[in-house]
Each structure stands twice: as structure tokens, then as C-alpha cells.
């Protein structure tokens, strides 16, 4: 027993730490899926907006003296508002065109945001302290001690993800949203303002990315490249899970984070690429994705 435990322990530990990355994959792929479902646009700028969330948190702290908790509310609002402006002025013009144009436009936006931040702050990265409330002894999980802030990330991400899932699947507003995804014209004919819903959806999706950015700020250094690194992995996550299902994208996000953690034990060199390898395998075995509809 003790020998088996000895084998199993690092596995469990890395898997649990993998949940931290998985939390970010889940929130980001959830946002992508929500935006794609409603707008039919793959938001390439999602990573840049995630990064922007982290930077806004840094700016709020260093320029306005607003700490972590304020940033957790304000940064998503600010970046989400920027998303609303982007949707109204640019993305809204593309709905009638091929989906690829939405991808190209948001790719351009990602370049603009990333380049601007690199000009303003350099590429080396800025420090963001772990908030006061989490400078406490690590949480004892029995098989490991988990730093309190990382524990918080996992918990809060679960709350946010399942909160979003609940809002979309179980509330009245969510039912309008799902109806508008299926039959926009019909829903519009019932007197529901579908364009406004699309704007709000994009804003909310972007705010979600910014929220993840604030969460990430104390863990990763705040730097202009952090978004690009994440978004490409999240694309792979989305291919694996399929964007058709909200719950699917959440679950896939966490699972892949955990698998990445496992890989760090057995074959650390592959931990950066394991998500892509899994994507390739899924494409071979089940081309529509794990939760995708054919």
C-alpha cells in the first residue's frame, strides 16, 4: 500500500496543480464557446483580452491604488466595455460574411493590443503580488500542501464556470440566448433585441477573459505574450471538446489541465505539447470532438 502510495503521490500532486492551468483553459474556452455560439466568430483576440485584464489589474494597483479585489470587478468591466465597442464598431459589420473574416479581424485586434502593450510596458513582464488575504499557510489536502492562492483560483474558476453554465442553461435570459443561437430571425420577430444580445454576449465573453487575466496576474508575470501562449492551447482545447457544448468546453479545459500536470511527472519535456498531441489523437479517433455535434 505504502509503495503504491509512493508511486501515486506525485501523480496526484501534479494533477491537482494542473487544475490551476485547467482553470484558465476552462474559463477561456468557455468564453470562446459562448461568443462562437452566439456570434459565429472565433474570437482570436481572446488571449489578448485575457492579457489586457492582467494589465488593467496592474494599472489599477499601481496608478489608482485599487487592489486585487477591486480589480477583480473593475478590470472585467473595463475590458468588457472595450469588447462592446469592438463588437459595435467592427465585428457587427462582418456577420453576413464568411466566418473566416471574423477570425482575421480579431487576429488583427490581437496584434494591435499585444503590440501596444509591448510598446508601453516592454516584453519582460511586471510583477503582481499575491493579494494580502492569501499570504497564509498553504491548504493541506492530505496528500499535498497547496498554496492558498492557487487553491482559490481552482475554487473561483469552478464557481464562475458553473455559474455561467447555469445562467445559459437554466435561466430565462439564457433560454432567450439559446433560442437566438438557433433561430435569430424568429427570436427577433418575438420582439427580442437580438443585436443587443449579441453585443452583450461578446462583452460578457471578453469580460470573462479579463477576469481570468486578473486571476492569472499573481501567478504568471504580467507580460504582453501571456495571452498568445494561452490562446493557442485553448484553441486546441476547443477543438478537442467541440464548441457546441458549454459544459463540454468547461470539462475539457479542466481535464486537459490535469493531463498536462500528469505529463509533468512522467515526461516533463512533453508537457508543453501534450495538449496538441491529444488534439491530434482526438481528430483521428473522433473528428467532431469529444462533445461536438456532427
Amino acid at each position, binding site marked *: 500500500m505504502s509503495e503504491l502510495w509512493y508511486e501515486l503521490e506525485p501523480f496526484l500532486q501534479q494533477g491537482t496543480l494542473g487544475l490551476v492551468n485547467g482553470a484558465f483553459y476552462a474559463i477561456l474556452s468557455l468564453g470562446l464557446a459562448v461568443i*462562437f455560439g452566439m456570434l459565429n466568430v*472565433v474570437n482570436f483576440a481572446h488571449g489578448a483580452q485575457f492579457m489586457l485584464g492582467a494589465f488593467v489589474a496592474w494599472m489599477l494597483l499601481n496608478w489608482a491604488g485599487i487592489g486585487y479585489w477591486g480589480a477583480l470587478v473593475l478590470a472585467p468591466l473595463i475590458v468588457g466595455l472595450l469588447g462592446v465597442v469592438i463588437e459595435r464598431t*467592427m465585428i457587427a*459589420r*462582418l456577420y453576413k*460574411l464568411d*466566418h*473566416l*473574416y471574423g*477570425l*482575421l*479581424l480579431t*487576429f*488583427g*485586434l*490581437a*496584434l*494591435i*493590443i*499585444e*503590440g*501596444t502593450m*509591448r*510598446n508601453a510596458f516592454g*516584453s519582460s513582464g511586471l510583477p503582481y503580488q499575491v493579494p494580502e488575504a492569501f499570504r497564509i499557510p498553504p491548504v493541506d489536502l492530505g496528500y499535498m500542501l497547496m498554496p492558498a492562492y492557487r487553491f482559490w483560483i481552482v475554487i473561483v474558476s469552478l464557481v464562475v464556470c458553473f455559474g455561467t453554465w447555469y445562467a445559459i442553461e437554466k435561466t430565462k435570459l439564457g433560454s432567450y440566448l439559446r433560442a437566438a443561437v438557433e433561430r435569430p430571425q424568429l427570436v427577433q420577430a418575438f420582439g427580442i433585441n437580438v443585436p443587443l444580445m449579441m453585443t452583450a454576449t461578446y462583452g460578457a465573453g471578453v469580460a470573462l477573459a479579463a477576469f481570468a487575466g486578473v486571476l492569472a496576474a499573481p501567478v504568471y508575470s504580467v507580460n504582453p505574450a501571456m495571452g*498568445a501562449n494561452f490562446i*493557442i*492551447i485553448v*484553441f*486546441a482545447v*476547443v*477543438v478537442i471538446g467541440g464548441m457546441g457544448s458549454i459544459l463540454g468546453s468547461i470539462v475539457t479545459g479542466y481535464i486537459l489541465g490535469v493531463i498536462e500536470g500528469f505529463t509533468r511527472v512522467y515526461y516533463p*519535456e512533453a508537457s*508543453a*505539447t501534450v*495538449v*496538441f*498531441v491529444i*488534439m*491530434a489523437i482526438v*481528430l*483521428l479517433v473522433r*473528428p*467532431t470532438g469529444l462533445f461536438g455535434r456532427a
Partner: protein
Amino acid sequence: MPRSQAIALALLVAFIAAAPFILFPVYVMKVLCFALYACAFNLLLGYAGLLSFGHAAYFGMGSYLSAHAAKIWGFTPELAILTGGLTATILGTAFGYLAIRRQGIYFAMITLALAQMVYFFCVQAPFTGGEDGIQAVPRGALLGVLDLAPDFTLYWVVAGLFLAGFLFLYRIVHSPFGQVLKAIRDNEARAISLGYRSDDYKLLAFVLSAAIAGIAGGTKAIVFQIATLTDVNWPMSGEAVLMTLLGGIGTMFGPVVGALIIVTLQAELAQFGAWVTVIQGVIFVGCVLAFRRGVIGELQQAIRRPL
């Protein structure tokens, strides 16, 4: 070849012939390498309707393998470039096979993710030299005879290679195979119902595109005598998209013009650092919102002749 395209080709050849006497040969060679890269990309996006967001993988691996073959294995430059092209072909076959299983947006995301896997591989693999890249790649002697060290000599080889690649792509697009590709682009279900195996056509287009991108990357490695992580990272994939979009998706000469503009822009703005990224982003957004036909596309529309 329609007269409009024949005239455009004559102008292109005249420009290539005159350019090294007016401009820096190395700068023109850079334009030609990227033009070939963008043309290869355009074969997919413009004529098969497939948006690959991962062409950096083929360009970059072509670049690395050519550099490695020339420096470590002592290959002559033409064999080194061939090695790079062959590597990209193999890679393109594997990735193309995976990517064509999904359509549209997913295709773009899959190609991007696979290319990023190649990037991470290159970061870790010892033969790439990590952050340093493969430096001081010898230009060697063509067929072991013609010394390519002088820029002026190398220029004509690169120019010939570019023209050969360009005409090859022209031939593909205007062959029966190319016609089927366009049919698949415009209405895949219909093409299938007519008895064409669309997956086979898409895969072959993908492999051809990857192969030529690899040759472009290999040539770039010989010209600049260096292969680095920049060649294989995602912004390089974005550049192929940008050049094609700006020049004109689905036009023969568009990617060449796009490459000329973007390479010139990068050279002029090099001193402003990250602003280059911002300006590229602005061009992307501007093109998508207001200039979707691109330079050559608009010209084509104005004269009502194919270019």
C-alpha cells in the same frame, strides 16, 4: 494565359531583372522568399478555401532543415533547399491529413495548434540551437560549381527559384486539378456529389502548399545564412495571411504585391520596434473591414480581367 496575366507576368519578370541594379539584392531576395511563401499559402486559401493558420511550421522547418543540411551535413545549396522542402512535404502530409478532418474555423485552429506544437518542439530540440538558432549557414556553391557567396550571384538563383515556384503554382491553379479545387471551395457538397473525392484534393493542395512554403523557408535560410525560432513561431503564420489578404486573396499576383508591401514596411519601420506589430494589426483590421479584395483584387475588379 489571358493577356492581362501575361502582361502582369512580363512586368514582374522585368521588375525582378531590374531590381538588383536599383535596390539592395538582399532586400529583393527577402521579398522573393516571402512572396513565394505567401503564394504557397494563397494556393490553399485563395483556391481551395482553406485558411491555414500554421504555415510557419512548414516555412520554419524548411528553414531549419535546409540550414542544418547546408551547415552540418555539408550539402550543396540546391540539395539543402530540397531537404527543407522535403521535410515540409512530410510534415504537411501528416498535418494536412489531420486538419482536413474538420472544416472552416476548426481547420484554422487545428493548423495553428499543430504549428505551435512544432514550435515547442523546435524550442527544445538540440539541433535547432534554441534561442540562438542555426547561425553562419554557408551559402555554398550551386551544384558544387557556382560560388553563391556574392549577393549578386545568389540573387539570380533565388530569382529563378521564385519564378519556377510561381509558374508551378500558376500551372496547378489553372490545371483540371485546380478547377476541382475551386469547385470544392465554392460548393464542397456539390463537388462531392459530382464524384470528386474532396478530401484527396484538399490533402494534395495542402501538401503542395506546405512543400513550396518549405522551399521558401529553405531559400530564406540560405540567403540570410540563419534559421531561428522566428521562422517557426505563430506570427510568421500570420504574415502569410496578411500578405495574401493585403495583396488579394485568390489572385495570382496578389501575394507577391502583398509580400513586397509588408517586407518594405518591416524594413522601414524596423527602428520602431513593436509598432510594426501594431501597424500589421491595423492593416489586418482595415483590410477585413474595408478592403477585402486587396490591392490586386481591386485592380482586377477595375480592369475586369483576371490577374
